């Protein structure tokens, strides 16, 4: 593993810990000073990420059901993001995995899921 790559990984790990500590100690659902979603404020519609902060807080406190209720897409996306990070920044995964998850069809499916979630959550108020 190259030096710059391991530096990148350590920066990511440290950032992750800082974010985790921050969202564990502050409850975004009740705090006045937590940033609100700009898209929601401006348009009145939810964005794909609305509820992520509350979902992180709930997850860190072990309330998995609450987290799903705040933003199910975010909870589902976490392992996917972790998978892509492992694939991009480490060599732990076999090349077969890389072939599948970076195939342009896979990317297209992800894009469609994001847009579908965006539309449907506003239609059904998820």
């Amino acid at each position, binding site marked *: 593993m190259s030096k710059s790559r391991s530096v990148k990984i350590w920066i990511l790990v440290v950032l992750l810990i800082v974010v985790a500590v921050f969202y564990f100690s502050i409850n975004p659902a009740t705090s006045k000073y937590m*940033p*609100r*979603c700009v898209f929601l404020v401006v348009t009145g519609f939810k964005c794909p*990420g609305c509820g992520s902060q509350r979902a992180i807080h709930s997850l860190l406190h072990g309330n998995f059901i609450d987290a799903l209720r705040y933003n199910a897409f975010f909870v589902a996306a976490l392992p996917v993001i972790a998978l892509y990070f492992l694939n991009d920044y480490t060599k732990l995964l076999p090349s077969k995995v890389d072939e599948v998850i970076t195939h342009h069809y896979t*990317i*297209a499916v992800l*894009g469609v899921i994001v847009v579908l979630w965006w539309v449907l959550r506003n239609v059904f108020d998820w």
Partner: protein
Amino acid sequence: MTRYWINFKGKQSGPHSIDELERMGVDKTAYVWHSGLDDWVKITKVPELNEMLEKMAGGNNYSATSAAIAAPEADEVPELPADEVPDLPPLYEQTGGAMGYAPQQRGYNPQYGATGYPAAQVAAENPKCPPTNLVWAIISTICCCWPLGVLGIIFAYQTKKKYKEGDYLKADKFSEYGAWAIIASIILGLISTPLACSHYIIQGLG
């Protein structure tokens, strides 16, 4: 009179007249290019040069020349099948110049040369896929509340698609666009989020 650029035994030079080429003692293994051609061709594909070669062969000891052509050098320089010629940037055009074109500017010079040919071929045909930045596109879609994140995903798709199709230049371009979409998304998020908060804070105070 047409002037020729030549790639002979791994060395590229030009422009030369036919007479100069004759004096250089080029043989059938050389590749040439002249203004008006889309790409480099084998010297034998250019009628007037082929004629010159035959004339040279007839004037000298024909068997010796043809042996030199057929034997060792032909083995060292595997022929590049036409369908494996990599996609290349358009020709550099020197407007008003006497020569018309400067082939060195195309940046893949010794591709047909006797030395270094296989390495050049591998490099030209299998460059690494430029980063799709997909994971950052997804993260910025979730965290930054701006549709630009989705644009990042679309560019990631285009990058990979163009790379698979062998269009490496476009793949590079889309990779770059994707990176800019993500950066723009993050910057917009960083600027607009505090603004949105101040809206609430002002409401709370008032």
